[in-house]
């Protein structure tokens, strides 16, 4: 029968149901398996082939040679589009993605993350340099 208000039953059915939305940030949704979040770099695996910097569509990743078989990786989170092409391109599996997604920051400088095999001897190390012994990168949002 063609009547207006056909959807009314649906509305009434939903009255008692709990809201479809989550109380974020108190409640956090589980991220999908294989979600492409913040990148992680393992300096000990890198061989400096530079394929990641060559393939990056947004120029977010830079590899510097510090010494014999020692490489430093600088990832600019403000440029990264989280496509994980660098993870695809890396033959040595030195790069991987994590499920971290809360990466917003007011300070632009904090969006640059440096993973270094060993801080260069003469220069002042950047504020958020990750030594190779500490595999977990520092999360600026969880301070």
């Amino acid at each position, binding site marked *: 029968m063609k009547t207006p208000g056909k*959807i009314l039953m649906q509305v009434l059915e939903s009255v008692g149901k709990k809201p479809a939305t989550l109380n974020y940030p108190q409640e956090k949704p589980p991220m999908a398996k294989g979600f492409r979040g913040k990148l992680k770099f393992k300096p000990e695996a890198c061989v400096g082939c530079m394929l990641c910097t060559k393939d990056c569509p947004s120029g977010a990743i830079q590899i510097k040679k510090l010494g014999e078989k020692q490489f430093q990786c600088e990832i600019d989170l403000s440029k990264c589009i989280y496509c994980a092409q660098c993870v695809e391109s890396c033959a040595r599996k030195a790069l991987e993605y994590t499920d971290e997604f809360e990466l917003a920051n007011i300070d632009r400088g904090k969006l640059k993350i440096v993973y270094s095999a060993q801080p260069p001897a003469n220069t002042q190390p950047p504020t958020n340099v990750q030594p190779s012994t500490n595999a977990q990168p520092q999360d600026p949002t969880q301070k």
Partner: protein
Amino acid sequence: MPNKIRKLPDSGDVQVPIGPQHPSLKEPESFLLTLRGEKITAASVRLGYNHRGIEKACEERTYIQDLYLIERVCGICSHAHLTCFVQAVEEIAAIEVPKRAQYIRVVVGELERIHSHLLWLGVAGHEIGFDTLLMYSWRDREIVMDILADLAGNRVHYGVTTYGGVKRDITPEQIKDVLKAVDTLEERTKYYIELAKNEETIIKRLSGVGMLKHDDALRLGAVGPTARAGGVDRDTRRDDPYAAYPEMKFKVVIDDHADVYGRTLVRMGELMEAYSIIRQALTNMPEGVFRVRAPRRIPAGEATGRYEAPRGEDVHYVKSNGSDKPERVKIRAPTLANIQAVTHMLEDRYLADMPIVVAAIDPCFSCTDRLIGIKDLRTDKKQTLDWDNLRLSGIKWYQKRGVDFSRLNEKLKRSFK
């Protein structure tokens, strides 16, 4: 084109500009309507407010970087654009794509169609003031978004397709999850079809609005559900099958209403077909590799990719010169084919029908805006500009009007170094 309301001296009609910034448009686009009272007597559309220079940018990046650029042509049909482009490149490089990869491409493509059509249903509901429908259809759309996030790692830019196959395989658990979600969605879609066929608000508001009959659809080159609602029996998935579509059994949904109501029914029918295609693809999925190696340098040649995106046929033309960067990329998004039909559909209708008529083709203006042609109105001289000159002429245009961007430009240049 003057962007203010004016009265035409001879007929007494009033010209009203809608857009580029207007509450009823989701993206900037300019429509100029000539009104006699409440009725639209003539309409014209002006594209170009969303030009991003994607085709040119493709030529300056490698094929691998282009994957991500092409994907961002559109947020809703990202898989459609990407697969269309990749199919063209694979044709040039003569890459044999494994069967399993083709099946996965079909599954993701159909899931994307479900997501797009449910989104459209919500938008259409919103445009006719039926926001309850918007809330429910978008709630159900979350199911398919979650499934896509699970399969691809992201809700919007899936990045599944790559040269020579797909990036990720589908595990048996994921197949189970997808089949379960498809069952729920099918149940919901049946409800929406029943709603569309029985709810008088929808039928009365959409019937006879935005008429595009069979012959007009053909003449104006309409594609996708816009054309199929007018009885045009055309679908790239059947007419020029790609990926695993030759092995799928499905029917092309056509309708003879030729109005917005017909387009609603076609889209709902396509949802039901999409569920059946996904079930077929998942149950018959062949075993084997899902990716083969593709070269970084693509041999010289040219090819055209065709893909039935949720909004209609998408065409990508790629020309390669043997290097790792394409020489020319041309994108014909479905909205570009449908936009001429909109001006025809608006004629002789009321001004209040304009939002739903525009929304009925499911427009994506940022997909469409591709080219800047400069035409001097006084001398009628046409001119094409290269990238640097276009930038310089932009700076000069503003300088003439007292806005100096040269200092800002210097600052930007420094910050990007």
